[in-house]
């Protein structure tokens, strides 16, 4: 447009002026310089914004793809059930092992927590029931100091919580007339820092400060146990002012996959199993919805066109596991409709298009459009739906013309700086007000650049792992375009293959510089996609094909191991290992040589006692990022010098 040239001339003029030692440059020149700097800066910020957005896309795509895998696991269970007669007598035991946890939670379990001795040396909180404010204060102080609550008190707390929840209806009705304002929080996912920040900014739960927590208290974060203990403690302390809705993560299978089970077992080695059992009972007894002043409906996921609040109030919620597929196996067909009502409410997501369609991303619940929202609100005389379930950059988001609000309370969910958390306050006038925050690990304020870089790095690592996990398929795809084995394809072809194999809706061309190298002629050297990654502990018996399959499904395999390993010892027998693996690969249709599995099983049984430590086994199929100095396992592995 000519601006560039004119500045150049002016600047040259300025140079001459300077040499002649004339005074400061004229106003016109200053103006031009300022404009130039602004333009340059804006361009830089725009690029940053772009990177932030596609980083977000990466995280979301991978997260939803992970939830799709959940569907796969559930269908594996149904496959097992269908085929158990072929399991040569091993079938029924294996199946009952899988389904055993789903025992009626209404039944009282023999919990002899009073027999558990708390040693003198224990310096953590000693709770006394019924709880008082000093107990909750003690818990807060203890958790801030990284202490763990003794198993005896955890069990007692859960037992009392279960008793309380049994008396509660499926839908809780609240009124603003007794209190100033009600605070509504979204997903916490084990982020203790966020919960403490909310309490700090907004006040502790009390008669003057009532709260509604809208599900997903556990999984993914490292302090799920502490978060949920605090929430339950306040529930017991102020049952009229503290309200918890169930989320889709308050569920046995989700906990196996997303970390809560592991966290409990790590923190409570002796009593972990009992504690987990009680947690599952309590989760299934959590109410599924809250209504404020008959006008605001709060549920974790959303609604469907079948949602009916009167019907929802009447069903026996504790009989329903939050997990769709597993339920279908266990629950009689007559009760199918019941479970769908609950699954819809815990799993659905709003969308822009009208109508109601199955939520294929999540494998459960629906996508519901503005017309569905409108209809439900009208039907029940409501004016607003508040839900959570989806991470939002600003911590909250409105849609459906303001009739639906998503509230999410775990800041930095994907990565440091990825998003804010938020909570809503609503008073008698029923107008929601939003409060945002972000937990920060450093006292110094991070620049946008630093935050974007950190988030981007994390997202790209996760993406590279996905590429690695699908290496053979990708190579096949590339080679179809590269019949002459040059090792190169065009950028378009490269993008096409990635999209077809990974089925993640991402801007591949924009990401290309981070994922693959270009040859001098501008084509992509596709092998370079996998250069940066290597196996954790290379096992010589493991072919790359087997390694890849095991890596891709390691989460599922881990879940299955955890189910089989009833006493959570970390060990399973070789026979069980072989058996499960054969079933899983049959289900996947993956051709893995039986003898390869046998060899593998034998080689992993390091002490030859017929049992496998599957944590060690899975470590082998962890992927290491070779060039990433921040990888905590890398330096350890490097010192072993075992790279092939």
């Amino acid at each position, binding site marked *: *447009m000519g601006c560039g040239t004119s500045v150049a001339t002016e600047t040259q003029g*300025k140079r001459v002026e300077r040499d002649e030692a004339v005074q*400061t440059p004229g106003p016109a020149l200053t103006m031009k310089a300022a*404009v130039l*700097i602004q333009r340059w800066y804006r361009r830089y910020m725009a690029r940053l914004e772009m990177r932030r957005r596609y980083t977000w896309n990466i995280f979301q795509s991978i997260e939803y793809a992970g939830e799709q895998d959940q569907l796969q696991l559930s269908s594996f269970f149904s496959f097992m059930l269908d085929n158990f007669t072929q399991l040569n007598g091993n079938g029924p035991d294996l199946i009952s092992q899988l389904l055993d946890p789903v025992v009626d939670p209404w039944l009282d379990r023999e919990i002899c927590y009073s027999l558990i001795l708390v040693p003198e040396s224990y310096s953590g909180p000693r709770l006394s029931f019924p709880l008082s404010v000093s107990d909750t204060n003690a818990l807060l102080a203890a958790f801030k100091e990284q202490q763990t609550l003794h198993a005896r008190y955890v069990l007692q707390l859960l037992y009392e919580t279960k008793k309380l929840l049994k008396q509660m209806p499926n839908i809780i009705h609240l009124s603003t007339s007794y209190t100033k304002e009600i605070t509504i929080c979204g997903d916490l996912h084990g982020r203790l820092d966020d919960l403490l920040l909310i309490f700090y900014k907004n006040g502790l739960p009390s008669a003057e400060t009532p709260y509604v927590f809208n599900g997903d208290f556990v999984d993914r974060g490292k302090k799920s146990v502490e978060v949920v203990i605090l929430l339950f403690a306040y529930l017991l302390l102020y049952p009229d002012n503290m309200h918890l809705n169930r989320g889709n993560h308050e569920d046995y299978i989700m906990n196996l996959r997303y970390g809560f089970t592991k966290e409990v077992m790590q923190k409570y080695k002796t009593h972990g199993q009992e504690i987990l059992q009680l947690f599952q009972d309590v989760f299934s007894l959590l109410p599924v919805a809250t209504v404020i002043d008959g006008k605001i409906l709060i549920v974790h996921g959303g609604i469907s066109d079948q949602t009916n609040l009167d019907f929802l109030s009447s069903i026996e919620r504790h009989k329903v596991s939050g997990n769709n597929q597993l339920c279908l196996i266990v629950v009689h067909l007559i009760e199918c409709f019941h479970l769908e009502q609950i699954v819809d409410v815990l799993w659905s997501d709003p969308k822009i298009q009208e109508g109601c369609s199955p939520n294929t991303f999540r494998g459960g619940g629906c996508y519901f459009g503005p017309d569905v929202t409108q209809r439900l609100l009208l039907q029940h005389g409501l004016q607003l739906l508040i839900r959570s379930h989806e991470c939002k950059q600003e911590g909250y988001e409105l849609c459906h013309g303001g009739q639906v609000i998503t509230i999410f309370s775990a800041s930095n969910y994907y990565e440091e700086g990825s998003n804010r958390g938020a909570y809503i306050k609503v008073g008698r006038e029923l107008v929601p007000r939003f409060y945002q925050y972000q937990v920060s690990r450093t006292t110094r304020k991070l620049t946008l650049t630093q935050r974007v870089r950190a988030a981007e790095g994390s997202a790209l690592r996760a993406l590279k792992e996905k590429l690695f996990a699908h290496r053979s398929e990708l190579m096949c795809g590339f080679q179809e375009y590269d019949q002459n084995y040059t090792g*190169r394809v065009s950028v378009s072809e490269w993008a096409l293959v990635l999209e077809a194999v990974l089925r993640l809706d991402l801007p591949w061309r*924009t990401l290309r510089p981070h994922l693959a190298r270009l040859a001098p002629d501008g084509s992509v050297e596709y092998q370079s996609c996998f250069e940066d990654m290597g196996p954790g502990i290379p096992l010589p018996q493991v072919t790359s094909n087997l390694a890849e399959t095991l890596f891709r499904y390691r989460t599922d395999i881990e879940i299955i191991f955890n189910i089989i390993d009833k006493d959570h010892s970390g060990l399973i027998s070789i026979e069980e290992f072989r058996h499960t693996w054969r079933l899983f690969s049959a289900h996947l249709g993956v051709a893995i040589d039986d003898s390869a599995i046998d060899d593998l099983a034998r080689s992993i049984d390091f002490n030859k006692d017929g049992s496998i430590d599957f944590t060690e086994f899975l470590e082998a199929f962890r992927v290491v990022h070779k060039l990433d100095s921040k990888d905590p396992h890398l330096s350890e592995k490097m010192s072993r010098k075992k790279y092939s």
Partner: protein
Amino acid sequence: MAESNNQSAETKLSDVHKRIKAAFETFDNAANNTVDVREIGTIIYSLGCFPSQADLHDFIAEVEEDHSGYIHLDRFLPAMTKVLLEHKFPPIPKDLLLQAFEVLDKDNKGYLEPEELTKYMTQEGEPFTQEEMEEMLTGLADHERNVIYYKDVINQLAIDPDM
């Protein structure tokens, strides 16, 4: 991969289209091929161009749907393709940038005080918001001395991979 000259021109055009679409889609929240007109600047900047505010106004006038506040991909794509193929808003060379900073650094200190930069950005050039100013200061200022060493900053901000 052997390609004739005709094909490479076509592929080049198709690649340009794909780049523009990818950038556009990142801001297309409703997935209906429209973006808010206020995001257009960001999209154009992120595609490697350096329009001034006046340039942006002209561009938007060309492609906006009758002051609806939205821009549709159908009109954006041809206009933006032209901009990219004709190199309409060329980038600023580093040395020019340096000279611009030196113009503002009237006392020849080698750095700018935050107050100085703020004055120029908000009073001199094109409209620059308070938020932009705050982020700029946080991003560019040296942590300890709290001044802007512009030579370093120019180099730092240029390291990011070019797309």
